[in-house]
Structures are given as structure tokens and as C-alpha cells.
């Protein structure tokens, strides 16, 4: 029987939750890297026991951790003296650092702060990508041992990007499974960018995104506060987006977008996910507003569309329906590949919820973790 491994990053460490294929009884191990912020953990699709973690701290900076045994033991790749290491923590922008737009309209030099997202390659177990704050994408070709920036991303009008309230970070990296040379990234607050040559060159793909107040120019190529994008592997040209406000869809790899918020109670939110077996089934968690980061009416509801957007249904069974004022952050929702599809999400209140029936019903599989920053799932 298959098993499930859930990789949970929190404000104060990482936790690994395990269950068998029934997904009813869960064990929790951790905290790993206790006291550190773990922005993201993710396993290689080619070698599921190889995991990567972004361990970060305002005091001690950025550390990349790697496990080759499914999370039982960890070490910084290349961290031992005989490996000549220390490079796995080194994220240096290529060439001239350059500047980006600051809140007051001035230009400000790029400054590395942390890794938000780690994306192992679909085609090579030693290749992975890192999305960073300040926004850039780095590539490692040696399993995380060293990193080189792909500077073409910041060349795509980087001087016009500016931070959102949470910083200016590459928080989403997607690789097209049909055309592995094609990569998408999403940046707050810059937008979506696509590369068709393995990250060498990039172009903004934001036509159709509208932010009337913050970005009055309807043709603005960059400056959009995209919170998350997702795709289904069988139909990678279709992208779904949770924007600062608005849920959006593209049917042409980002060339144009249309709004599919439909009848959602709020179209503000952070995560968005696509069902593992139904490319038109999409999940979001509506949040009241950009100033009130909690569910509408204090009721934690996942919304599911079975029609690729526009029409949404509330999923509430097993979720708190009163006095609930947690948030669900952009990296904190994931789907497994079992049938029925499992859906998982973590909250800023430290709960992790799981559904083993495509979202029809939910149960809390952890209740008292630190604030959850990210959730990834593996079928092993």
C-alpha cells in the first residue's frame, strides 16, 4: 500500500507527517531545525527520498538542507570540510546587482534575504531551482551544493518590480512536464514570468491581470501582485492564479488571463491548487481582504470549482465554522496523487487539515504546530 509523507514548513521548524494510503492515522516527527523558519521543503519527483529544505533566520541567514533518506537525517549539501563546502548557503546575484522599485518610488539595490521556494527538476535529480527574496531564481546542478543565478529573469523589467507587504520574492516555480525547458515563476509584486529556454531568457506574461487602484495602467506588463499559480501536469498550458484580489485562468501558458472568481465570497486569498486527476477541479481558500487576513465570517471554507473556475462550492465538513481567524499562506496547500485525491493545507494557527476524498470532508491531522508556511505532499 502506498504511503503519504507530508512536508510541513513552519515559523519555528519543519515537521514531517506520515500515514499509510488510507490517510487516517498520522504520525508527526519534528521539529527539525528547531527554532528556524522553514519556508519550504520539497522532494525530488525522481528520487522521493531526496528532500530539500530552506532553513532561514533573521539572525543567521540562509541555510540549505538536504536529506537522502526521506527526512530521517539532514545535512547542508557540501557542508563537510572535505567537500570544500559552504557554497550551498551562498546566493550571490550575477553581475551588476542592479536596482528595483522601492515604496517611495526610488530605486533600491537588490539584496538577498532568503529562499522562499525550492523546486526540484522533473528531469534531473541533481538539478533544482530556488526562488529568492529579493526576487530572483537560482539554479543548482549539484543537488544543492552550489547555486548560480539565472539573471535573465531580473532582466525582464526588474527595475519596475517592487515589494509587496510580505517582501519581493519568487514564491512559485513551475516546470512544464511536457516541455521541461519551459519554466514559470510568480513574484509578489511583479507578476508571472515564463522562460522557454530553461531559464536563460524570460518574459512577463501578465496580460489580462487588472489591479485598478494599485496599477491603473491596464497594459502594465509588470507590477502585479500574484500570490500563487498552479497547473495540472496533463494540461500544462492551462494556468490558474490566485492574485492579491481575483482568481484568474490562462489557457495559453500565460499569454492572456481572464478572471474566474465567479461566485466566491471573496476573491482575495493566497493558495490555489489543482486536483490530481481532474484538470478542471481547482481549490482556493477565500480570505476576507488584504487588511483582514482571515476567512470570511470566521468560517474556514475551502472552495472547489469543478468547471475550471467561475462556479464554486464551499467545502466545510470538518472545518471550523465559527470563530476561526487563521490564514492559509500561499505555499501551504498541496494535493496528493492517490485516488481519491488528497488535499492538504496548513494554517497560521498551526493546524494542518487533510481531506482524503477530494475536499468533501476534512480532519485536522495536526493542531498545535507553529504557524505553517508551507505544505508539500509525497506519495511513497
Amino acid at each position, binding site marked *: 500500500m502506498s504511503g503519504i509523507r507530508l512536508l510541513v514548513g513552519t515559523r519555528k521548524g519543519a515537521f514531517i507527517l506520515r500515514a499509510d494510503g488510507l490517510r487516517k492515522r498520522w504520525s508527526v516527527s519534528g521539529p527539525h531545525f528547531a*527554532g528556524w523558519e522553514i519556508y519550504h521543503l520539497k522532494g525530488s519527483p525522481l528520487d522521493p527520498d531526496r528532500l530539500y529544505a530552506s532553513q532561514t533566520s533573521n539572525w*543567521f541567514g540562509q541555510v540549505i538542507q538536504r536529506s537522502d533518506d526521506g527526512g530521517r537525517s539532514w545535512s547542508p549539501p*557540501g557542508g563537510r570540510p572535505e567537500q570544500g563546502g*559552504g*557554497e550551498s548557503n*551562498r546566493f*550571490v546575484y550575477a553581475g551588476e546587482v542592479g536596482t528595483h522599485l522601492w515604496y517611495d518610488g526610488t530605486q533600491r539595490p537588490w539584496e538577498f534575504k532568503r529562499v522562499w521556494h525550492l523546486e526540484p527538476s522533473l528531469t534531473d535529480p541533481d538539478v533544482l531551482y530556488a526562488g529568492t527574496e529579493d526576487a530572483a531564481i537560482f539554479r543548482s546542478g549539484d543537488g544543492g551544493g552550489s547555486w548560480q543565478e539565472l539573471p535573465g529573469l531580473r532582466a525582464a523589467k526588474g527595475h519596475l518590480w517592487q515589494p509587496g507587504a510580505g517582501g519581493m520574492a519568487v514564491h512559485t516555480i513551475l516546470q512544464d512536464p511536457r516541455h521541461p525547458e519551459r519554466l514559470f515563476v510568480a513574484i509578489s509584486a511583479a507578476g508571472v514570468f515564463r522562460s522557454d529556454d530553461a531559464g536563460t531568457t524570460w518574459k512577463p506574461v501578465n496580460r489580462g491581470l487588472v489591479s485598478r487602484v494599485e496599477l491603473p495602467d491596464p497594459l502594465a506588463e509588470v507590477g502585479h501582485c500574484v500570490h500563487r499559480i498552479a497547473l495540472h501536469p496533463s494540461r500544462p498550458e492551462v494556468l490558474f492564479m490566485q492574485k492579491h484580489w481575483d482568481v484568474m485562468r490562462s489557457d495559453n501558458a500565460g499569454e492572456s488571463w481572464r478572471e474566474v472568481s465567479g461566485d466566491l465570497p471573496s476573491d482575495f486569498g493566497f493558495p490555489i491548487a489543482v486536483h490530481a486527476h481532474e484538470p478542471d477541479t481547482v481549490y482556493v481558500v477565500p480570505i476576507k481582504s488584504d487588511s483582514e487576513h482571515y476567512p470570511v465570517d470566521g468560517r474556514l471554507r475551502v472552495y472547489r470549482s469543478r468547471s475550471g473556475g467561475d462556479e464554486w462550492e464551499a467545502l466545510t465538513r470538518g472545518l471550523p465554522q465559527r470563530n476561526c481567524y487563521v490564514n492559509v499562506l500561499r505555499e501551504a496547500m498541496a494535493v496528493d496523487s492517490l485516488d481519491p485525491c488528497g488535499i492538504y493545507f496548513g494554517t497560521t494557527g498551526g493546524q494542518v487539515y487533510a481531506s482524503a476524498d477530494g475536499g468533501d470532508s476534512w480532519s485536522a491531522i495536526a493542531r498545535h504546530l507553529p504557524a505553517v508556511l508551507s505544505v508539500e505532499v509525497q506519495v511513497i
Partner: protein
Amino acid sequence: MIRVVLPYPLRELAGIGGELMITPEGRATLRSVLDAIETSYPMLRGTIRDHVTCKRRPLVRFFACGEDLSLQSSDDLLPGPVRDGQEPLLIIGAIAGG
């Protein structure tokens, strides 16, 4: 031999149980001590000082003999009792965060 006490998160990261005993190359300065630490424990590169500029990270501080050494030149000699191994060099995470 220089005694060095690292903050708990960095001891955990490097797998160090207690004090470090460091023999720096040349003069016993902050720079030479940190160079020696990073040579023995490369996973600590970038956690105490910047990878490229070698500037102290803003929320890391250096203390010894009741003195804050954080703002002194990294090429200044460490205090005599530290050089003699009588007192440790303390590397700490600054009190910050409310």
C-alpha cells in the same frame, strides 16, 4: 588556542556540543578566528558574516571579557585573556524581535 562559544542554533547546525577550541593562523583577530571556524565548519559560512563582504551579520554580536567587540575592526587583536585561552570569545544572536 582560542575558546569560542557559538549560539545554540549554530552549534546545532554544525553539530558542536560545547565550546570550540580554535587555533587561528597568524594574529588572533576576529577575522582569523572566523576564518578558522569556517574552514573547519563550512556549513557556518554566511551565518555569522556575509559570504562575500565578510561583514558581520546585523543581528550577530561578538563579546569577550565583558566588552562588546562587535564594532571594532575585525583585524584588531582580541583581548589578552581571550588570546591566552582564559576567557572565551562569545558569538551571540542579538536580542531582537520583541
